[in-house]
């Protein structure tokens, strides 16, 4: 792949230039990615944002349409979403890798048009993780601290500058349009990039064996009840997870004027599958089992991809200190 160099101080200037005719999204703090108005707002840190990028493609709250009573009856006004070009800068490779995984679901037979519209209008510039945070396990899932899946350009911090790997046509077009910021890179830089990636990959110590999980995870295992003991169904893991996509549809308003919304939901919730007449998952451990088996068995069976990118947020933020990599290991060992 073709490569360029970007001097470190030029990143902020590039962002300012992009802002002239794009929306720009970048980490704004350790808490989240957000839309920024100047290159100075770009927040680079060793910590990845607590929240992933998924909200920029699958918003936590999205109005589907409005219903209004009129003299003639009822009128439905569908929502429209922007098609302004957008660039995400300094995205973590794991957050970006979740997008091709989610594409499978949002495109399964029925195309979710607002999701794909956002995918279409977005160019992604990732920034490699130097160093990778301690709870990550992207490598065993086919990712990497300098992973390229889903990205258009990858920035890798070398000693002196950013190595810019041009991954897609779209990435190439961006580099050409903003050529004034980029310099040529040479073989030495490419080698340095590769060497650094190897170093970072070696620092990722947590791992899972996805193939084994898919084959060995057992719904009927007696181990689930014990494994679910520490979990309090807080749902943080599902909200922070870049691949969790379960949602609810709710109406707010009344029959004269209402909106129908799509909002994030979680299988960890007690009422997730609860019907007026029957509840298929009354026990907490059945919900815990659903979450792990959906991610590592059911989704792969339906779509050929594991519903996880190894970002480690579920480990980092679990109030009870549950480590999903250990829990999964015990789930298959203790059948």
């Amino acid at each position, binding site marked *: 792949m073709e490569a360029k160099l970007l001097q470190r101080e030029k990143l902020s200037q590039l962002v300012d230039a992009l802002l002239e005719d794009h929306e720009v999204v970048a980490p704004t703090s350790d808490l989240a990615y957000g839309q920024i108005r100047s290159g100075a707002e770009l927040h680079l840190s060793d910590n990845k944002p607590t929240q992933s990028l998924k909200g920029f493609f699958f918003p936590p709250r999205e109005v589907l349409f409005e219903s209004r009573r009129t003299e003639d009856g009822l009128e439905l006004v569908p929502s429209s979403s922007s098609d302004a070009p957008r660039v995400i800068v300094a995205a973590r490779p794991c957050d970006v890798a979740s997008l091709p995984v989610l594409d499978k679901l949002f495109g399964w*037979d029925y195309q979710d048009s607002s999701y794909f*519209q956002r995918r279409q209008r977005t160019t992604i510039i990732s920034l490699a993780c130097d160093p990778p945070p301690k709870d990550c396990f992207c490598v065993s899932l086919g990712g990497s601290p300098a992973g390229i899946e889903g990205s258009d350009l990858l920035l890798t911090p070398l000693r002196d500058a950013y190595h810019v790997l041009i991954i897609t046509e779209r990435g190439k077009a961006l580099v050409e349009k903003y050529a004034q910021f980029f310099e040529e890179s040479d073989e030495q830089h490419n080698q340095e990039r590769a060497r650094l990636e190897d170093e970072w990959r070696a620092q990722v110590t947590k791992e899972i064996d996805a193939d084994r999980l898919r084959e060995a995870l057992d719904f009927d295992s007696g181990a689930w009840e014990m494994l679910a003991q520490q979990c309090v169904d807080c749902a943080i893991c599902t909200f922070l997870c870049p691949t969790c996509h379960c*949602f609810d549809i709710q109406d707010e308003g009344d029959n*004269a004027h*209402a909106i129908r919304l799509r909002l994030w*939901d979680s299988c960890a919730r007690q009422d997730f599958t609860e*019907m007026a007449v029957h509840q298929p998952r009354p026990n907490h451990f059945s919900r815990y089992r*659903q979450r792990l088996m959906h991610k590592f068995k059911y989704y792969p069976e339906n779509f050929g991809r594991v519903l996880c990118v190894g970002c480690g947020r579920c480990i980092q933020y679990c109030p009870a200190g549950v480590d999903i990599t250990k829990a999964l290991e015990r789930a298959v060992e203790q059948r």
Partner: protein
Amino acid sequence: MDSLYLPHCMTIKEVIEETPDVKTFRLAFGDDKVKEQFDFRAGQFGLYSVFGEGEAPFCISNSPTRKEYIECSIKRVGRVTNAFHELNVGDTVGFRGPYGNSFPLEEMHGKNLIFAGGGIGLAPLRSLIWNCIDTRKKFRDITIVYGARSTADLVYKRELSEWVKMKRLNTVLTVDPGGEDETWEGEIGFVPTVLEQVGPSPKNAVVITCGPPIMIKFVLVSLQRMGFTPEQVITTLEMKMKCGLGKCGRCNIGSAYVCKHGPVFSYEQLQKLPAEY
């Protein structure tokens, strides 16, 4: 921007009170062109909504051979169903569909069909029953065993009388012991018991059953005793649904999504799925 979640606005043309807590709604499309183009297969469902209250899945209980109205039968149990029960003729509701798979009609051709239904479980079967009646020559014997807790709880009472009178069907109606009223002329007994009494042969036959979980459980036991195999028994399942089209992650049983791989399943298929429904 077209949205998967944007429903048709339907007008309620008729409300039929089937039982003290079940109403059937006959809905009409606003646009004749949409009405002409709308097609579906027996067993599919839609997401019906009361704007401002919410949306819920119900089967399309009219047959594809009788598409003048979209019909759904709704039992009042929660927020959305209660909201439906407050509506009147002329009110507007939302409808989107058809979703899900359907009864395997082609595999049923040339076979003896046995319908075993209980209570509101007759609603999804009704679409298929009328479909079969309207294409009667394609099937051999058709037996219907249907029951409810009491005479008041039987749904589609007008149609039940029609089916009883039809010579091309063998229709046996029953109510649970103690559920009969003075005018009741049908059987008295639980559906599984009556099914065994009717005693259809498993040879070249398909059973389609739907009803409360307890009834289905005992129907299966009876069918096994009568020599039916799991591939011969078909049912349709109910799960909490929001999107109806495989995205919200709510209706799965193991790897099977009830809204995509179902709601129609054979017992052979269900035996391979986790017991979480």
